[in-house]
C-alpha cells in the first residue's frame, strides 16, 4: 500500500467521508446544542444544564436506558448466535441450500411492521396459537401473550428481523475459511466447540463484530416493534424521546436523543471489544 498525495486523498474522501461528516456533524451539533438549551422552538435559547439534570434524575430515564440496552444486547447476541450455525450449515452448497438461504433471508424483505402485525394476529387472545394450545390441553384457557412483560415477543421479532443480516455477513466470512484449515483443526483433535471457538470465530470475528454492532444499534433505537408488540410496562429510549417530542418538549427529547447516540457508540465499542477479547484472545 502506498501513501497518496494529500490533495488526492482529500478529493477521494470528500464524497463519502466528507459528506458524512458535514451532514451528521450538523445533526449531532443541533441535537447536542438543543439538549443544553439552544435552538429552542419556543421560548428563550441559551446555555443551561437544566434539561440534563431534570431528565437524567428521572426513574423513567434510567428505566428506558437499561431496558433499551437489554433489548439491544440480547437481540444482537441472540441473532448472531443463531446465525452462526446456519452460516456454517450453508457454508458448502448442497441440494436445496439455495432455497433454504432464500427462506432464511425472507425477513429482510418483509417490513418489520407487517411482521409485527402478523405476529400479533397469531398470538392474540383468540389467535390461532392460543386456540391450538387450548385444544391440545396445554393451556386451560386462552392466555394473554401479546405485549408480554419480559419482552419475549419483542425479542423474537427482533431476532427474526435481524438474524438474516448476521447470516448474510457471516456466510461470507465462514465461506472464506479454507476447508483444509478446518480439517487440520479437526485432525489435531479439535471438537465442534473447539473448532468454532479457536478457528471459525477468530477468523470471522470482523463479520461477527459488524453484525453485533448493526443489530445492536437498530434494536437499541427501536420504536416500531416496541410500540406494537413490546411490553406495556416498559419504554424504549426512542419511545421515550417520542413521548417528549409529542409534548413539544424538544430539549428533553434532545437529552434522550444524545444519550441514545452516546450509548450506540459505547455499546458498539463494548460489543466489538468483547468479541475481540473472547474470540481473538491471546494474540502474540
Amino acid at each position, binding site marked *: 500500500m502506498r501513501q497518496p498525495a494529500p490533495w488526492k486523498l482529500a478529493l477521494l*474522501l470528500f464524497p463519502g467521508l466528507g459528506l458524512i461528516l458535514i451532514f451528521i456533524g450538523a445533526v449531532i451539533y443541533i*441535537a447536542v446544542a438543543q439538549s443544553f438549551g439552544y435552538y429552542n422552538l419556543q421560548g428563550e435559547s441559551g446555555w443551561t444544564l437544566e434539561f440534563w439534570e431534570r431528565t437524567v434524575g428521572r426513574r423513567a430515564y434510567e428505566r428506558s436506558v437499561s431496558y433499551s440496552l437489554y433489548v439491544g444486547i440480547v437481540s444482537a447476541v441472540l441473532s448472531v448466535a443463531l446465525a452462526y450455525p446456519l452460516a456454517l450449515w450453508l457454508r458448502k452448497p448442497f441440494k436445496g441450500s439455495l432455497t433454504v438461504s432464500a427462506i432464511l433471508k425472507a425477513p429482510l424483505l418483509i417490513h418489520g411492521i407487517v411482521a409485527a402485525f402478523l405476529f400479533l394476529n397469531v398470538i392474540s387472545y383468540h389467535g*390461532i396459537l392460543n386456540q391450538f394450545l387450548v385444544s391440545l390441553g396445554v393451556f386451560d384457557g386462552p392466555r394473554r401473550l401479546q405485549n408480554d412483560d419480559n419482552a419475549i415477543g419483542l425479542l423474537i421479532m427482533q431476532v427474526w428481523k435481524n438474524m438474516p443480516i448476521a447470516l448474510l455477513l457471516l456466510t461470507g466470512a465462514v465461506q*472464506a475459511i479454507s476447508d483444509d484449515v478446518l480439517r487440520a483443526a479437526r485432525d489435531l483433535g479439535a471438537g465442534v466447540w473447539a473448532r468454532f471457538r479457536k478457528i471459525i470465530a477468530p477468523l470471522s470475528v470482523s463479520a461477527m463484530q459488524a453484525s453485533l454492532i448493526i443489530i445492536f444499534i437498530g434494536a437499541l*433505537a427501536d420504536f416500531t416493534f416496541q410500540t406494537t408488540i413490546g411490553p406495556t410496562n416498559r419504554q424504549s429510549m*426512542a419511545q421515550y424521546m417520542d413521548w417528549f417530542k409529542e409534548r413539544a418538549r424538544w430539549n428533553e427529547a434532545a437529552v434522550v436523543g444524545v444519550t441514545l447516540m452516546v450509548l450506540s457508540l459505547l455499546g458498539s465499542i463494548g460489543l466489538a471489544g468483547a468479541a475481540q477479547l473472547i474470540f481473538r484472545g491471546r494474540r502474540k
Partner: protein
Amino acid sequence: MTTTYVLNRGLMIMLLIICALWLIIPFTMAVLWSLVDPSQPWTPENLLPPAMSFYRWEFAWNNSLLQPALLNSYLLAPSAAALTLLLAMPTAFALGRYQFTGRELAKLLVLLPLVVPAFVTAIFFTSLLYQIGLAQYRFWAILFAHAILFLPFAIRILTVSFEQVRQDHIDAARDMGARPWARFRAAYWPALKPGVLASLLIVFIQSIEEFAIAYIVGQPGFVTIPTLLYSSLGQDFNRPNAAVLSLILAVPNVLLMLLLERFLKSANPALASGKG
C-alpha cells in the same frame, strides 16, 4: 457423506416446517381477515368470517395512497442504492488501497450515521432543509439523506473489496498493456463485484425499509411504503384493512426476493473468489 446428507435433509425438513408455520399460517389468517365484509365483523366464535367480499381490497386500492407509495418507494430505493455506491467508491478506494495516517480513524468516522438515531437525523435534517430553502424538493432530499445514511454500509463493504484486489493482478494487467478500463475489468471488477452487489442490495433494502426520514421529510404527499404502513398498520390498525395492505405489499417483496436471490448467487463471495 451419507450421514451429512441425512442430516441436511432432516434439518431442511425441519426448517421448512418452521417456515410454513411462520409464513403460511399468518398469511392465511391475513387473507381471511382481508375478506371480512363490512356488514359483519369476524369474531372468535366463527371459524371463518361470516360474510366475505373483496370490498376492502377494492377500497384500499382505490382510496388509499397505496399506488403512489409503491411507485415512490421502488423508485427511491434503487436510486439511493446507485447514488450511495457512487459516493462510496472514492472513499472506499482510498481506504482500501492506500496507507495513510488517520486511516483507522477515517474508517471509524465513516460509521457515524449509524450511531445517530434516525428520528434525530430526520428532524434536524428537515430543519436544515428549511433553512437553506430546499424543503420542497422532497424526493431529492430523501434520496440524499438515504444515500448518506447508508454510506457506512457501502463504504465498509467496498473497502474490504478494494483490499482484496490483488496488486499482482493489477500489475499483470498493466504489464499486458491494459488501459485503465480494461485494467479495471480484469483486476478490480472480479474482486469488487461481490461487494458492489452486496452494498447495492443492502442499501436498497435499507431504503425500502427506512421510516423516519421518509416520514418527516416526505410530508406532505410524499408517501413511501413504510410511512403508509405506519399510518395504517402501526398503533391504530384495524385488522381487516391492515391485512389487505400487508398482502398487497407482500407481492412485490416476493418478486423482489426471487430477483435478489439470483443476484446473491452471483455475489456469493466464496464462489466469486474461489476458496480461501
